[in-house]
């Protein structure tokens, strides 16, 4: 009994129907087991028929086909579907959030002007390199977020890389005005909020500049960093002429307003999470940086993939159709016995007194 209950519980956890009342019609499935599709032909004794396993098998299959047809029709009418569910998968790699800067400065080349001729804009370079990066890491689950004036969640964590690639393809669209790194990072951290397993998580911030991070946002970031341990990588696409984030400026000039990138760097160092910054001044440097990240982030991960609800009404109707086609074929293959003294349409077990016309009289008529 408990086994049956467990089975039912397991079934209803993954499977459901839209109209449960229709399932009551499933009792009709016993009808094909009680009555076949054939007209019964009388025979003096069944002992006349030699034993034949094939016939038994065919009879069984046809009976079951009738029952299956009824059941499948009922399930199709009831709207059978598999509920949305999570499948646990194994992979190696990391949970990676690509946090992309979409400010308008990304549309410039590394020389910080509008790209001309064979020059590549920063966003195009980032797009090309990130696409390669994603292509090299098939087992990662990636999320994509962008930030500009405000953060934009683009993709949740997913392992469907074609979507990720499409999202990366879109980052060289013309950008917007400002750069709000802090809230972008908060968004990136919040992506991991539902993530509970022990995979390595990484945030890859691709940006070419920074702005001041608000105090309150700083606090929130510290909170998020302590809650969700992540690896933080900053790929700083440094334009020519921009100050490096590593060089210590002379005292007096070391203010956040004058040197926001350096101060973002300092702030990120204080978050208490593993953090590396790469300065990339050319496409080649960006490639090196990405290769470095590639080396770092290889740990086995286990994750749960959400699979959306899937309707099974159509397959159910297909099954019913196939079963009915089988029955139809069997019915069309039906033959009758031709006992003596009977019109060809005669039935084996007819009424006595029902008479048949002999050929001679049929001709006469």
């Amino acid at each position, binding site marked *: 009994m408990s086994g049956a209950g467990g089975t039912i519980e397991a079934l209803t956890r993954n499977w459901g129907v839209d109209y449960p009342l229709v399932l009551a019609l499933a009792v009709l499935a016993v009808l094909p087991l009680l009555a076949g599709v054939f007209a*019964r032909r009388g025979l003096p004794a069944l002992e006349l028929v030699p034993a034949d396993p094939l*016939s038994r098998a065919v009879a069984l299959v046809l009976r079951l086909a009738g029952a299956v047809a009824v059941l499948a029709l009922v399930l199709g009418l009831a709207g059978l579907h598999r509920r949305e569910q999570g499948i646990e998968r194994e992979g190696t790699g990391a949970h990676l959030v690509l946090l992309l800067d979409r400010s308008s400065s990304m549309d410039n080349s590394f020389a910080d002007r509008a790209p001309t001729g064979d020059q590549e804009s920063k966003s195009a370079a980032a797009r090309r390199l990130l696409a390669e990066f994603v292509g090299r890491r098939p087992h990662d689950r990636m999320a994509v977020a962008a930030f500009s004036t405000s953060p934009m969640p683009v993709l949740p964590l997913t392992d469907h890389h074609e979507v990720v690639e499409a999202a990366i393809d879109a980052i060289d669209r013309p950008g917007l005005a400002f750069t709000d790194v802090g809230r972008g990072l908060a968004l990136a951290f919040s992506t991991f909020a539902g993530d509970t397993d022990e995979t390595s998580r990484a945030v890859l911030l691709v940006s070419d500049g920074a702005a001041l991070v608000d105090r309150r946002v700083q606090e929130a970031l510290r909170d998020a960093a302590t809650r969700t341990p992540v690896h933080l990588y900053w790929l700083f696409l440094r334009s020519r002429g921009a100050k490096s984030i590593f060089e210590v400026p002379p005292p007096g000039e070391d203010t956040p307003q004058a040197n926001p990138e350096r101060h973002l760097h300092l702030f990120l160092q204080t978050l208490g999470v593993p953090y590396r910054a790469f300065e990339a001044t050319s496409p080649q440097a960006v490639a090196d940086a990405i290769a470095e990240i590639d080396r770092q982030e290889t740990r086995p991960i286990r994750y749960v993939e959400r699979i959306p609800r899937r309707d099974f009404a159509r397959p159910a109707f297909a099954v019913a159709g196939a079963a009915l086609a089988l029955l139809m074929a069997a019915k069309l293959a039906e033959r009758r016995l031709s006992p003596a003294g009977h019109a060809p349409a005669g039935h084996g077990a007819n009424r006595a007194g029902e008479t048949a016309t002999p050929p001679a009289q049929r001709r006469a008529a």
Partner: protein
Amino acid sequence: MKDTLNDTVTDARGGAARGAGGNAGAEWQPIAYRLRWRPEGILPGAHPGHGEGAEGQFRRHVPLLRQPDPRRIDLRVSLRDPFGELHVRQFAPRRTVPVAALVDLSGSMRFGGAVAGRVADLCALVALSAVRAGDSFALFGADARLREEVTLPLARRRGLEEEVRERLLTARPGGTGTEGLMDAAARLPGRRGLVFLISDFLMPPVALERLLDALWRHDVVPVILRDGGVEERLPRWGLIELGDLETGRARLVVMRPGLRARWIEAAAARRRALAALFARRGLRPVELGDALDADALAQRLMEG
């Protein structure tokens, strides 16, 4: 088509068609039958009987002293006798014989309307022949019990064949088993008679042996009913759902040439076993095929 038994209206089908075979009763000519044994009894009839008769079938010459009947002295034989003894012709008396038809009315006889068709034809023909020969005829129909509505006691009245046909046309074969034939055997007359045992003989051999034991006194002619519908006219391919006419059980059969061959072979084997069973008892069965073959029956009955 309704049965046209009491139908005096001639229809377009050719009118006076009676019975399932569509054979008009007048079409059948009575057939002669001979016995290999001498019936007892006292009624004058058509068969050479026991004892000494005054006329009829010549049997032998006996001395006048053994049979003092001077009217039957055979002069030529007496003159040829070197001892000069007088010889008298001796004849077999002509006696009647009771003829009975025991019809199996179990469910299996429903197949192909056999009882209303060729069995009715056969019984009517035998009844007609018996009545014309001066013999009496009785009909017994039985399944698990004796069926009184398909039973006619011994009679020799004219038109008996029509009564027999009518009884068999209205008979509804059904039920299982042939135990009633034992009762019929008990109701047969005490003297030896000619008994037609009409059945498809699908009963268990033990039951058949018991029935034949009960009929030990009589000259039994087993009439084996066979139907081409379950032998040579079987379809080669296709699906048939078969229902046992007696037990009602059903089975689906996938017909194909191999199975058909096995089926026909099994039927032939069953017929051989049946023939062996009858041969052990010295009975020579008659086969009743899809239609009554009166000529073959007449030949078989004339052989005695």
